[in-house]
Structure formats: C-alpha cells, structure tokens
C-alpha cells in the first residue's frame, strides 16, 4: 500500500514534531511513507471563512499531488474533514482521493487494523475530542483506543469533553471575547483532570488551548496524540 503523508500547512510550519511522529509510527509498523513535496494546504481556512474561490487552487493542487496514492494520512481532524466532506462538493474530480484520505486514527484502526502501535508514555494524559473529528469524521473513540494501548499511560477523563474549545479557525480572531470565554472554560476542565498532558487530534485547536494553558502557567503540555503514540520510552 502506498501511503502518503499530508502534513497540513500549520503542522509543516509550526508543529513538525507531529509529522515526524506520524512517520515514525508508520515506519515502526513496517509501512513506507511518502511525503510529496508539492503539497501545500487543504484550503479549509479560505473555504470556511468565505473565500471558496481562493480555496479552489489548493483543492486542485491536492488532487494533483495525492491522487496516485492508495491512502493519504493527515494528522488533523479538521483538514481531513475539509477534504472528505467538502471536496466532493467543491470539486467533483476530488471525490475519489477524498475518500482515500484518512485522519491518523482512521488509517491505523480501520485501514491498517492496528490498535497497539508499540508505544510507551509514562504520563497522566487527558484527551479532548476536537469538533471536526468528533462530529464530522465521527472518529468515535478511535484515538482513545490507540492511547489506551500505550504502555505506562494514565488516561483521565476530561469533563465536558465534547464541547468546542472556542478555536473555530478565524472565529478566534473575529469573535475574541466569546472564543476566550470558551477557552477559559475548556482550560478549567483540563486543569480539573490533574493531567500533565492534553492530547488531541488537531494542532490548531491545541495551539489555542495550549496557548491558554501556557498563559495561565498551568504546567499542562498540549500535544498531538501522534506524538504520544510515537514515544517508545527509549528517548524522552
């Protein structure tokens, strides 16, 4: 199976550790991963902010870059949802590649049939199901299923877990007061858990929640769950 990594624009620039983690997990499981260098961005921010015309070149570029792969994995619930839910409507030739695009936990659990990726991580972790993963991709408990198999991990439940963190892409900038109020409540629920690590499937939401947790010097680290799955206890 030819697997390609769609890193996403935000991860490429600010969260390369997530992409490195995905690469390590898949290689550890014996798969070859490609990183087509011509990839850019899925166009979600443009499309969801009202600039669909400006998103279209990115949509077409995605099809050009990834159409030849059997499976494309993206470590982002919201980018995967953009591709799977919106691409077929925006650009019908994208229908097939959209259906072959998976969020990491879907690839691991559904396509590769793996729940134990051989990870070890000795920390108390709480998991926030991000909205697009939860309600658009219907990831269900796939990410948690993977995390539960990690040796040494202590998973604690997040209160009001299914409630949005208040990021919402440009919402965070256009509606800063409401966004901040939602963030404050989410950070409080995270701190209630006593966890030292907050995991989720989207680095953009994590930048928002993590940025809020850092602002209050909570000592909770926000990481993409791929980075936990990549840990083997050998390094950190």
């Amino acid at each position, binding site marked *: 199976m030819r697997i390609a990594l769609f890193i996403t624009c935000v991860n490429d620039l600010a969260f390369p550790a997530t992409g490195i983690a995905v690469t390590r997990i898949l290689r550890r499981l014996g798969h070859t991963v490609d990183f087509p260098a011509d990839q850019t961005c899925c166009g979600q921010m443009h499309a969801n902010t009202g600039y669909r015309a400006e998103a279209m070149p990115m949509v077409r570029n995605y099809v050009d870059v990834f159409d030849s792969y059997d499976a494309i994995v993206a470590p982002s619930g919201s980018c995967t949802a953009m591709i799977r839910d919106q691409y077929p409507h925006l650009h019908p030739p994208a229908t097939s590649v959209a259906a072959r695009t998976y969020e990491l936990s879907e690839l691991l659990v559904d396509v590769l049939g793996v729940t134990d990726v051989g990870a070890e991580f000795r920390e108390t972790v709480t998991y926030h199901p991000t*909205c697009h993963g939860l309600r658009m991709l219907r990831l269900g408990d796939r990410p948690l299923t993977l995390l539960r198999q990690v040796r040494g991990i202590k998973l604690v439940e997040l209160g009001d877990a299914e409630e949005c963190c208040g990021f919402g892409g440009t919402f965070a900038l256009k509606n800063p007061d409401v966004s901040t109020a*939602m963030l404050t409540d989410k950070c409080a629920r995270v701190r209630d858990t006593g966890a030292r690590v907050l995991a989720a499937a989207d680095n953009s939401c994590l930048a928002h929640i993590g940025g809020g947790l850092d602002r209050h010097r909570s000592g909770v680290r926000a990481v993409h769950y791929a980075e936990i799955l990549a840990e083997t206890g050998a390094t950190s």
Partner: protein
Amino acid sequence: MSRPVAPATGSGRIRTPLPFPTAAKPAVADTQLRANLHRATRTIRAKRARVVDEVPDWEALRDAGAAIKADVQRRLPELLEQFEASATAAGATVHWARDAAEACRIVVALTQAAGADEVVKVKSMATQEIELNEALEAAGIAAYETDLAELIVQLGDDTPSHILVPAIHYNRAQIREIFQRRMADAPADLSDEPAALAEAARAHLRRRFLSARVAVSGANFAVADTGTLVVVESEGNGRMCLTLPETLISVVGVEKLLPTFTDLEVFLQLLPRSSTGERMNPYTSMWTGVTPGDGPQDVHVVLVDNGRSAVLADPVGRPALSCIRCSACLNVCPVYERAGGHAYGSVYPGPIGAILSPQLTGVADNASLPYASTLCGACYDVCPVKINIPEILVHLRQQAPHPPAERAAMRVLSWVMRSPRRWAAALRLARVGAGPLGAYRERRTGARTLRRLPWPASAWTRSRDLPLPAPQTFREWWGKQ
C-alpha cells in the same frame, strides 16, 4: 400563470443593530448572565438527551421530518393554496402579508373591526418578528403577553433572548424583582420559588383571560389538507387565548405548512422532546376554522412572507425554512451559552438565527451572524429536522461582504499556497525570519511562543500565547533524511 416576481427580503426584528462580536462583548463580561445561561442550557440539554435517548426510532423520525419539510418547500405555493381553501371552507378567513408592516396592518385592522382596544397574546415568534406589539400600541391597542417568559420580558421592558424561553437570561431572583416592580397585583411577600412566581402570573392574568375579546397567536404547524392550525404549549395560556375570546387572529409564516394531518405524527414526536425535553408538552391545541358553539367564532389566519421567499430562493440555504423553533440548537451551542440571545440582535438567536436572520434580511444586512459560530457541529447533531447548520453558515460566509484588509490577506495567501514552489519558499522565509525571535523567546521563557502582539494579532494574544515557527519545518526535516 403570473409573470416572474422576485423573492423579497424581510423587515422587522431580524437585523443585528450591532455586529455580533460587539454585541457579545458586554454579555460575555456579565457574570450573572453567564451563570444563568450556563445553568439553564445545561439543565435542558440533559433533559433533552434523556427523552431522546429513550426513543428507539429517533433517527427515523428525524429523517421523516427533514423529508416532509423538504417536500413542503418544494410544493409551497400549491400547499398554501390548498391550506387557504381548506381553512376557508372550515370558516376561517385567510389573509396574506408580504412583509412585517403589512402583517401588522392586518392584525390592527381586525382588532379594531372587533371593537377591541386590547388583545391577549400566545407566545409567538412570528409576532415578535414583525414587531406586532409595537404596531398595536401605536394604534392604541394594548397587547398582553400571557406566556410566563414573555410576560417577564414584557414587564421588564426587555426583548426575548431565546426562542422557547424568552426570559432564559433571568434567574428566579431577577424575575421576582421584575414582578415586584411592575406587577401591581403581585403579593407583597412574593418569594423567588418558581411555583410562587408561576402562581403570581396565574392570578395576574386570570381576569384578563376571562374577559378578553381578541386573541393573537402564532402557530407551530398549519396543515394544508385540512386547514388545521396547531399550537404547542405548556402553561394553558395558549388554551385560554385560543378558546375563550370571540376573535382569534393567528400570524403564521408561510413555511409552517405540513402537507397532511398525518404528518403531525412525526412533528409532535420531534418537537416536545427537542424543545422542553419532555415526552409531550402539557397542552397542544388544534383547530380547524370555526366550530359552532365551541371557541372563537371569528377566526383569522395571516400568512406572512417577510423574507421567506428569499430564503426559499437559495437551494443551499433553503432548509433553514425547515426549522420548527424547538431551540435545541441554542441549548447545545457553546457560542449561544456565552453570548446569550440578545447578541444576535434578531428574534431568532443561536445557530438557527445565525443562518435564518441573514437569509431573511439578505446577508449584507446581517454580515456578522454567519461568523458567530465555530462550526463545531453540535447544532446539526441535535436538530430534529436535520438542518445542516454548519454547511449553511459556510455557504452564507461566501456571500458576506468581506473586510478589504482580510480579503487582501486571503488573496495573497491563496496566491502563495496555490504554488508548491512559492509555498515552500514562504515556509522557509517564515522559519528563517522568525528564527532569532524564536530562539530568543526560547532562551528567555523556555517556549517558542509570543505573549503580546499589536492589533490585529492581539485578538489572539490577549488570551493565548502564539506559537512561532519551529526551528525547522517538517519538509526540511524530511529533506535531511
């Protein structure tokens, strides 16, 4: 047939006087309001979840509800004509109103023709939308709201902030205070127990019900094949208004139609459970024209367009007309919970308001509302008629007028991102450019983040640190392997 006539937008209380973010700002800062909304929305969410979970065929009911409403929209002109014929045959008089002002004129004229200088009102979104109370008052007619929450709002000189519970923004202590200040016959020792407050409202309105000559209502459903109107309520104020006065005037949006009486079997299961979180609301009244010797003998229906034709004209936005005003989307919305209903500036707040109001007025007149959502999708999950609210929000954002600076930035970014070569160069430039700053911040604070930036980035850094580009981009890491 008639020549093409363009669909028209509506008027009334459906426009935001202030952009949503501006209107939300004081609401978010009001800790009492936040606490009231937090408690109320969480109470109703839990109740709804319990009674929905016990229905094994809930998804089948939703599918049927969505399909019936789509069918109504597709056949709206013929169903309206059918409703008019059935209701007229049963003794009702059907009126048509192009917009809010015309609807108000009709109700005022009917009230005057009945020789009344006051009306009792059943809670109705349509009459709030057309600002009927103000029109009646201008004509010297007193309008008395009889739903408890509407009464609270009216006595408090306020406007509704929720579709189902217009006074959701008040807690019991605030309601007692309003009653003591504005309800002349409130007991001196009125407590803030909900039962005592309800008792005070009962006593206050009793005589008015028994002597009222004209009532004004809305309708939850209007059945085309029989001419039947349906009002779903809890307190009995609806039954009082629909039964005791001689004249009954019902103001009904054209989208409220159902094709057949049998279709009620779907909607009377979906609505109460989605709305008050009950298996069935205490009272539902159905009437078809006039019944000799029973109830009002002078029955009128005012069918109102007021922008609904404009909503119907947009095939993507059209399902907003499926809304049955249950409020489930408001109750689960994290944005509504923080901002409250008044921030939406329209009688239709929350997620449904964010798609309905801009469509009723034209998006340019309510341009901030499609952005009053994180697109989290909780509204779509609970909608009993499966309106894909996030999809319509994104659709309306395409039509919204964009700020010039934002448009310029988005175009530049699109120009960069559409080209793999330019994007790779931009990534390198951003990484290199931010390198010294990132290294400096990391040395000083241990993290490659920024804490304070000037406008417009301050919208982010006011409440969260901003991550800087990593020391190497992912593609640089990949290239080095």
